[in-house]
Structure formats: C-alpha cells, structure tokens
C-alpha cells in the first residue's frame, strides 16, 4: 500500500472525556483512499468515540482533524457530511414508517419549483445509488418491514447518495449472519476499489484477516499501532496484538450430567412468528437455537420473557431469567445508574416496609460489578456511559446472579470483544455445570457449536431440525434455509 497517498481523513492527538471517564486519551488515525481499514480493540477501548469524532458527531476536547489534507475551520456532523464523511452507527437512524426511497432522500430531496419534491428524479438517483452498490432494495417498501441486513444496506446507500467519500461503519457485522457479513465485505471492497475510504469497527479477527487492508488496534483510549494486513494473516498473531499478549485457549467444554427437564415448551404459537414450537431443556444442558433472522427466534425469546403473549401452547419452567436481544431498549434503563440496572426488578428483596435498603443494594451492585468485571467499576455511573460490551455484562450478570432454574440468552456475545466473549462463554458453561438449564439463541454458528449440547434450527416459526454441535456449517446452513436433509440427532 503506497504510504505517500493522500490521507482521506487524518485524526491526530485526539482526546475526549465524558465526565470522569477518559474515553479517548491519545489517538491517531490515518484513513487512506482505496483501503478497507479495520479498527479492533476491547470494549470501551474508545473505538466508537474516536470514529464519532472523525464523523463530526462528537467534538474532541483536543486534537486535530484533517480531511483530504485540509483542516476544516469548523467541524461538526453537518460539515463532515458536506466534506463527504458518513458514519453508519450501531443503532440505525432510519424512520420505520417511511419508505426506503423517503429515507434515502430525507434531508437531501431533489426539488422542483415551489419546494415540491421531484419524485421521478429521486427515483432515478436512488436506483443509480443502489445499482452502484450492486444491491437490490424495493424503493417503496416500508423500512420497518426490512430485515436488519437490508436496513444496514439502506444506511450505506444513503451515505453514497450523499456522495460520501469516507464511509465509517461501527460494528456492522455484529448483527449479520456469516453469509450476510461476507456479502457486506464484497460491497465494501467494491466501494474502496472505486476510490473511497472504508473504516470498519469489528470484533471478529477472522474478518480482519480475510477482508481488511489495514488494521489499527486500540486499547484503553489509545491507538496502539497501525499495520498492513497481508492476505492470509494469522488470526492468532492479530489476537496477540489485540489483547497485548497471547490469547489463552478457550477451555474445552467438560461433559455435564443432565438432570430433570427444567424448561418444557409445548406447541407454542404466536401470530405468524411461532407456529407450534415444542422442545425441552434439562438441568445442566445448553441448548442452542439457530436460524436465519426473522424465523421466530426473537419472538420465542420475547414470549419466554413475558414481553409477548402467546396465542396457544404451554411453557413450564421453574424460575426463569431472560436476556433479551436488544440490551439497550429491553435490557437496560440507560438513564438510570449501573447500580439500579444491576438490581432491576429485584428491589422487592431489598425492601423493608416499603423502604429500600440502599446499603444492601449498593453492596450487591459492587459485588456483581466485581464478579462480572463491569468496567468502569463505578455503580453510580449512568448505564448509558458504558460501552456495549460492559452493558451486556450488566444484563447477563444480573440474570446469572439470580441463579434461576432456566436462563434464556439471546445473542450473548453480540458486539462483545474477544476476551469478554470468552469470559461470558465460561460463565454460561459454569452456570450449566451448576445445574442451570440454558437456552442460547445466536446468529453466530461458531458460538453455538462451542456452547451447545444440541442445536435447534428454526425455520418459519417451527423447529425443523435438531443437530449435534459437531454438525458443520453446511448442514446447519441447509437446515436454516428449510432443508429437510438434516438428520435428527
């Protein structure tokens, strides 16, 4: 990669603090045209903050920002957009009730006289932007009816429609299946080849090894070096660099004794999403659920967690805890403290004659922070101030700490870094070893294979296959697409 090429975006000496927390303390980043640039680092290392500064969404406390070699006099989100810098955040900024086309042109509508929108021209432009990306999206579909991967494509197309030359994506693959992630990288490569710069935050090192040209490692608010990625680079060497030492091997699952049935689901039905789902989970067992997004897994979790009422069927479980899919809206009260969140729904056990015993709540919160390694270890902080991975630790830790008979977890390590993911896996295995019955829904087949004793595959609201964890990607993938070839375990 020619180092003499002009940097499309250059950040240096960036510093940013939120109240008492220093999110970024000394970061530099140089993004080149034509390259796919990966940013890796632990949860809370400052990746999102640094890139939000790059996209003008946050203002840095100190540091310099240069776009195409020039320092803009005034830099905010609007200025960044005008300079061709766009960011696709983890949480999409789309209007669910508007169509794909309306979302695309919103704020940049081609107009005719008297402020009327030139719909024909908008269509033509949108069609061109879509074709340029090599994706198809129905322009008149309501955005709320799109799948996650399509929403993400829409965000990217929207950036291109606004003539973005630097495209920043914050953990785009965290919500995608492996196939969708590969398709995304094909798109990103195409954009880079056409002369744009692409920046991708990811936790998956195999993606970096396979798809990135350049990688920058961040740790504790600092950028710790940038290097070119050679095709076929080893994931191990990247991992060592990432965690600042060799990665400990994942502990092999130990055989567990299975006990009595703890979760018994019979003929569960809910709208069109669940159409007669039956299975059971025994004490000490981890059952995985796989499926292409939108085949009823989300609804299954929501019914088990009481957020959705079933139409028919029966769920028999002892005490049950559910970690829902969207930790920010369903798992946490973001504007409440870490302490409040760690005991959410439990206040009854800390109450005497109606009054909460704050000392005991505090002691519990401090103990859980230590046990689940929530960082920063400050119970008074607002949950919003924590990184995604640490938010996940709160939600999962709260559920585990209650020692339920049954634990249902949706996407336990989505958007969580390597070390934290390992620690979460170990905690789930330990819980099973203690006799907890676990149901784990995940889009990550590798994760399911590592954790589960058996894998249920959901297709169109039904369980269509039960596979052993030794089944390969091909077998599971075929079952996920409704193939009837999968053998029963």
């Amino acid at each position: 990669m020619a180092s003499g090429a002009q940097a499309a975006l250059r950040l240096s000496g960036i510093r940013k603090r939120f109240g008492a927390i220093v999110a970024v303390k000394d970061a530099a980043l140089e993004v080149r045209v034509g390259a796919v640039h990966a940013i890796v680092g632990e949860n809370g290392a400052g990746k999102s903050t640094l890139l939000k500064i790059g996209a003008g969404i946050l203002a840095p406390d100190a540091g310099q920002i240069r776009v195409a070699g020039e320092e803009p006099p005034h830099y905010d989100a609007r200025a960044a957009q005008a300079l061709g810098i766009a960011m696709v955040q983890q949480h999409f900024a789309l209007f669910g009730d508007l169509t794909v086309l309306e979302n695309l042109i919103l704020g940049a509508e081609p107009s005719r006289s008297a402020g009327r929108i030139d719909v024909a021209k908008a269509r033509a432009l949108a069609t061109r932007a879509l074709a340029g990306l090599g994706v198809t999206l129905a322009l008149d579909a309501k955005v709320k009816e799109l799948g996650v991967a399509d929403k993400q494509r829409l965000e990217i197309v929207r950036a291109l429609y606004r003539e973005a030359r630097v495209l920043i994506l914050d953990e785009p693959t965290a919500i995608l299946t492996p196939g969708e992630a590969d398709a995304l990288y094909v798109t990103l490569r195409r954009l880079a080849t056409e002369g744009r710069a692409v920046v991708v935050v990811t936790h998956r090192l195999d993606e970096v090894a396979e798809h990135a040209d350049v990688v920058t490692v961040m740790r504790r608010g600092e950028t710790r070096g940038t290097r070119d990625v050679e095709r076929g680079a080893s994931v191990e060497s990247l991992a060592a660099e990432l965690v600042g030492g060799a990665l400990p091997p994942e502990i092999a699952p130990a055989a567990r004794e299975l006990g009595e049935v703890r979760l018994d689901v019979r003929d569960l039905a809910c709208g069109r999403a669940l159409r007669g789902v039956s299975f059971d989970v025994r004490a000490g067992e981890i059952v995985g659920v796989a499926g292409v997004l939108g085949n009823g897994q989300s609804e299954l979790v929501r019914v088990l967690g009481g957020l959705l009422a079933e139409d028919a069927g029966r769920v028999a479980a002892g005490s049950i805890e559910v970690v829902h899919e969207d930790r920010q809206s369903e798992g946490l009260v973001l504007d409440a403290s870490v302490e409040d969140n760690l005991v959410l729904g439990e206040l009854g056990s800390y109450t005497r004659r109606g009054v909460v015993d704050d000392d005991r709540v505090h002691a519990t919160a401090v103990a859980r922070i230590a046990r689940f390694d929530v960082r920063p270890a400050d119970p008074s902080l607002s949950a919003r101030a924590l990184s995604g991975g640490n938010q996940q630790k709160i939600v999962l830790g709260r559920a585990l700490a209650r020692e339920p008979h049954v634990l249902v977890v949706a996407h336990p390590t989505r958007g969580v870094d390597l070390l934290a993911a390992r620690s979460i896996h170990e905690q789930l295995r330990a819980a099973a070893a203690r006799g907890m019955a676990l149901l784990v829904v995940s889009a990550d087949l590798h994760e399911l294979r590592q954790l589960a004793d058996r894998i249920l595959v959901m297709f169109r609201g039904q369980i269509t296959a039960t596979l052993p964890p030794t089944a390969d990607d091909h077998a599971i993938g075929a079952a996920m697409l409704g193939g009837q070839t999968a053998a029963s375990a």
Partner: protein
Amino acid sequence: MTSVAPTEGPSRRTEVLAVTSALLVAWIAFALLVWIYGESPLLMGRLLLDGTWGTAYGAGQVLFKATPLLCTGVAVEVGLRAGLFNIGAEGQLAVASVAVAVVGAHVGPLPSIVALPLLVLVAMAAGGAWAVLPALLRARFGAHEVIGTIMMNRIADAGIGALLGGGLAVAGSVRTANLAPSGELPRLDAVLPALHGSAASFALVLAVLLAFASEWALRRTRVGRELVLVGKNPIACAAARIPVPARLALALTLSGACAGLASAGTVLGYKGYYEMGLGAGAGFGGLAVALLGRGSAVGLVLAALFFGTLQQGGLAINAHVPREVMDVLVGVVILAVSLGDARVRRAAGRASLVAAT
C-alpha cells in the same frame, strides 16, 4: 451545534442554564409588555417587588398564592417522573375542592384534630379518584393520559356546575355551605402576627411537606424507585418483571391525590366553602411549577414562590398595566423552560421518530 450527542443526561450546569435563561426571557418579555403600555419597566419591577416581598402582608399573599401551585406542581412532577403528563390537575383540584367543602360542612361534631386530617384525606382521595379513570385507561389500553386527563377536566367542569345548580349550592347562590369551624385550617398569622390580613394558611406547611415527602418517596421507597425507572424505560422494566401498568396507574393516581391537596389552600385555609371557579388556573400553573422546579423539592418550592410572586405582583401593578400581563409571563416561562426539558419531549411522545432498528 448539531454535534452534541445525547449520550448523557442533563448536567447541573445545563439545568441552571435552562432556568436562568427562562427567567431572563421572562424579564425581557415583562419589560416589553410594560413598555407597550407606556410604563417604565424598572418602575413597574420596583412596584411589583414592593407589592409582594416589600411588606409582610404582600409576602403572606405570595405564600397564599404559592400554596396550591406547589401542590399541583408536585402532582405534575410525580407524573413526569413516571413518564406521564398529568394535564388534569385542574379537574382533580376542582373535584377535591367540592368534596372537602361538602364533607367539611358536616364535620361540626368532630374536634379539629380529627376533622382536619380527615379533610386532608378526603381532598387527596377525591383528587386521586378523579385520576383513576385516565390512569386505568392508560395502564390497561395505553390510551394517552393527556387526552384522558383533559377529558376529565371537562367532565369535572360541567359536572360540578350541574351539581351546584342541582341542589348542592346554598339556595340562590353558586357556592356550597360554609365549613364547620372545626374544618377550617388556621391562618399562618395565628403564629406569625406580621402576616396579619394575608390569606396564607397552614396549607402551606402541608404543601411543603408534600413536596419533600414525595421527593423522599421517589428516591427511597421501592414503588417510588420503580416509578422513576418505568418513566425512563418501560420496556426494560416490563422485561425485568416490574408491573409496569400497575406502576403507571399508581403514578397518575398519586399525582391526582397531590393535586387534590391544593384544595387545602383554597377551601380549607381560605374561602371556607367552594364556589364555581375557586382555584381555577392552579392546575395549569402546576405545569409551570414542575417544569421550572427541575425535579427537586427545593426547586419546586422556589418555582411555586416565583409564580406566586408573579400572581400577587400582577395585582400590585394592576393600576398601570393589566394583570393579565402576568399570565402572559407564565406562558413565556413555560415555553422557555420546556424547550430544554427532555422529560416533556419524552412524555409528549416522539413515538414515530424513533430509530427503526
């Protein structure tokens, strides 16, 4: 600047900024209005202060005006904390006023020590009861509480008129019978002779107690804490098995009860009976108090005193400028301070604008 990300709640600095800028805007609006009437803003400001805090009587009148405002301010605040916008304090106060006036007329056989606590309970129960229907509609069917409470305001208005006309009023009038003497709340001048002549009563003490008690309850009791959590994210609370509908219903009912207590200041401590229109406006004034009070008991007390000062001050300058100028000011302050109030935006619902993830 568009770049300020909504990553943190409002800091103390932005709170102070919101309040001071609102007060500044109010002063400018006052100066403008007074100037339109051909008077000197500085002179009118001086008159306003002299007529309120300048004399013991004026100060007492401010306290009197602030009393119901503080109750309704607490009422709105309790609702806002749970994510609810109680627009119905007006009707809740009116219904409570009729209830205490009617019951109070019959407490003659009881000594004050029994009659007064009883009447306070009646006031709060009646105010709360008037909020129960919108509370249930909201909790059970998700019907927006703003619509529900507005509707109840109309029903209270029309219903009370019909009741008074239908025999509840003393013959030939639009007022209820006098309270029994044991049902009258003593005036503050009984212990502070300087306030002599002003209508400030021990209802003020009740109102201040209410403000601090509710702050304590929201912070320290299980139900209070859960109310606040529900106000911040009902979905996560439901997922954590907090009974969200029950908490919402309770919040709006308690809010109505607080509004009902305002009748202690108007009926029990002042008029001694209810007549059509008594206390009108205090319910809506409560919105202003809650918005300016910024979520603390001390803030609510100060805000109630501020608006009480405006009301009383309007009378002091009435000879030069119409006192309705003060109503305009109240509106200006509400607008200015609510611009920066995230809770208002949340409670009013940005429903369809949320991200489509």
